């Protein structure tokens, strides 16, 4: 690699770092994204100027096809479907890593790593590890995509000996890699790919739909490590640096999500949490009657309050209620109330999902607050309006040591003067735990589709 090429790749790496750095505040974020695009452009142009790269026509066509597909998907996608889109994109990075590694295996001279059949040991190790991570990322992301999109049941699929099979497969892959590094056999290469595909599926199927924020972040991390692995094969620092950035980003996001649920990463990975199983286990019959209200009551009560905090959850996203919710908030503000939004770290199906949905509905970002910023204010708040969320408000997380959600940080909506829960029915949340707030005197349940309920309240406020 010439000095100029190396320098250009370094500039790209720095631009990528600055691009992530820009996301520290919404006011600098768009510039950050632009720096990322600039970094990528420099990386691509630099690579194209490599003397070994000659087939511009074919590359141009491939690039154009991919670019058109990517752009048209990104322009059309609904913001509620972001998590599955990101999962799908991760799968492509994984698959691309497998293809690059396969290509390096069949034509090592293009990468300056020896000739067919006599690739140096170091390159073989890097290549096979990059391939394995890429392949796991590919199938794992596809299953995550299927669960988020609803193609595959969101319930955890658990069977006996599952973890044992995973362990065997994992050891098998390591054995295959060792053998491949000695023999350089092509069947072994594809066996590694195949076994990694299988383990990618097996790792994700036991994990329930609501744990997907952790999984999507984890796969984000994997896609970075796959890129770093290929970077070693190519002796390319840009790929290693970028891979490490993406890898640590995904790992940190997974950590934040796990902390938001007070669960260990291993506990999430082992799966089996939530879904039907948990609902039946935790579904103790409850004869108490929750107080049910209608939209007109809610409108009247909120119109006369000074401070309101809205707590949105995944149910709001499913019902596409964000626009109606914002309109309701505007009317309440016009009536003289202070309206703010409180976001739990694991609300929605990917980190920061609620913030994007509220931003889409034109809610200013300075009215949307994180758990730490707003939790103390509930005690001085007249109304807490919980829409499509449940577990993240459940005080059992603080009081009931036997509860599945014990220790999870919650939004203290119970301290507000008046509580509203917008829900479809009385069913318990993902964790399968009953929420005793539903039976409090100052709680009013508003049953129905989140969007419909908001629209009815808007009508009530306009009268």
């Amino acid at each position, binding site marked *: 690699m010439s000095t100029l090429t190396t320098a250009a790749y370094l500039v790209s790496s720095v631009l990528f770092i600055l691009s992530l750095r820009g996301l520290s505040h919404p006011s600098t974020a768009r510039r950050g994204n632009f720096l990322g695009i600039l970094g990528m452009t420099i990386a691509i142009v630099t690579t194209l100027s490599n003397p070994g790269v000659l087939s511009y026509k*074919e590359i141009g066509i491939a690039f154009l096809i991919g670019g058109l597909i990517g752009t048209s998907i990104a322009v059309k996608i609904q913001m509620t479907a972001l998590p599955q889109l990101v999962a799908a994109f991760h799968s492509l990075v994984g698959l691309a890593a497998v293809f690059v590694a396969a290509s390096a295996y*069949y034509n090592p001279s293009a990468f300056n790593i020896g000739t067919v059949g006599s690739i140096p040991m170091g390159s073989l190790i890097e290549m096979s590890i990059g391939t394995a991570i890429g392949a796991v990322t590919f199938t794992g992301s596809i299953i995550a995509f299927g669960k988020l999109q609803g193609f595959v049941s969101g319930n955890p699929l658990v069977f006996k000996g599952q973890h044992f099979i995973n362990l065997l497969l994992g050891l098998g892959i390591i054995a295959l890699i060792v053998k491949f590094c000695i023999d350089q056999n092509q069947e072994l290469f594809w066996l590694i790919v195949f076994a990694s595909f299988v383990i990618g599926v097996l790792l994700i199927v036991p994990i329930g739909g609501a744990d997907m924020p952790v999984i999507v972040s984890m796969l984000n991390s994997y896609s970075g490590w796959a890129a770093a692995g290929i970077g070693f094969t190519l002796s390319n620092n840009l790929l290693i640096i970028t891979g490490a950035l993406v890898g640590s980003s995904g790992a940190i996001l997974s950590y934040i999500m796990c902390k938001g649920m007070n669960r260990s990463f291993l506990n999430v990975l082992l799966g089996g949490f939530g879904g039907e199983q948990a609902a039946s286990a935790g579904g103790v019959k409850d004869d108490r009657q929750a107080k049910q209200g209608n939209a007109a009551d809610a409108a009247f009560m909120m119109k006369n309050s000074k401070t309101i905090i809205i707590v949105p959850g995944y149910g709001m996203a499913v019902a596409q209620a964000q626009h109606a919710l914002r309109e309701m908030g505007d009317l309440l503000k016009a009536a003289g109330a202070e309206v703010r939004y409180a976001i739990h770290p694991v609300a929605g199906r990917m980190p920061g999902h609620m913030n994007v949905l509220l931003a889409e509905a034109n809610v200013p970002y300075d009215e949307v607050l994180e758990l730490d910023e707003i939790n103390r204010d509930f005690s001085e708040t007249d109304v807490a309006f919980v829409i499509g969320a449940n577990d993240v408000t459940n005080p059992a997380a603080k009081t009931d040591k036997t509860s599945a959600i014990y220790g999870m940080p919650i939004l203290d909506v119970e301290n507000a003067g008046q509580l509203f829960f917008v829900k479809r029915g009385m069913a318990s949340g993902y964790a399968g735990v009953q929420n005793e707030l539903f039976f409090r005197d100052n709680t009013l349940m508003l049953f129905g589709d989140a969007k419909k309920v908001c629209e009815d309240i808007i009508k009530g406020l306009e009268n």
Partner: protein
Amino acid sequence: MSEISNQLESLSYKAQQIANEASQLASSVAETSGGHSDFIIFGITVLVLACFVGYYVVWSVTPALHSPLMGVTNAISSVIIVGALLAAGPVDSNISKYFGLVAVTLAAVNIFGGFVVTNRMLSMFKKKQ
């Protein structure tokens, strides 16, 4: 605003310093011996240092922008296209080249998709008027 740009500058300065140190280390390694196997230890050095940079940069990302963060990281992880272009580069057609072209297409989907969707997300974040 100026504070942030100052921070950016100091960060880029630090990153360059790290890179300089790393390249010095690499050249000292290269002097003692030669060939590809030396890249591994150099590469690991870069990897570890980049993980530290990533750690500090990502913790400074505001939680409200975690979805755009995933969009951007998704797009930049497609820098793997560098490998794909090298694979697709040779003139003579063989299996290796076709693998490269497929990888170029996949990475391009991600690059464009990732940056465009992130831009869409970020353009929606507005301050109170």
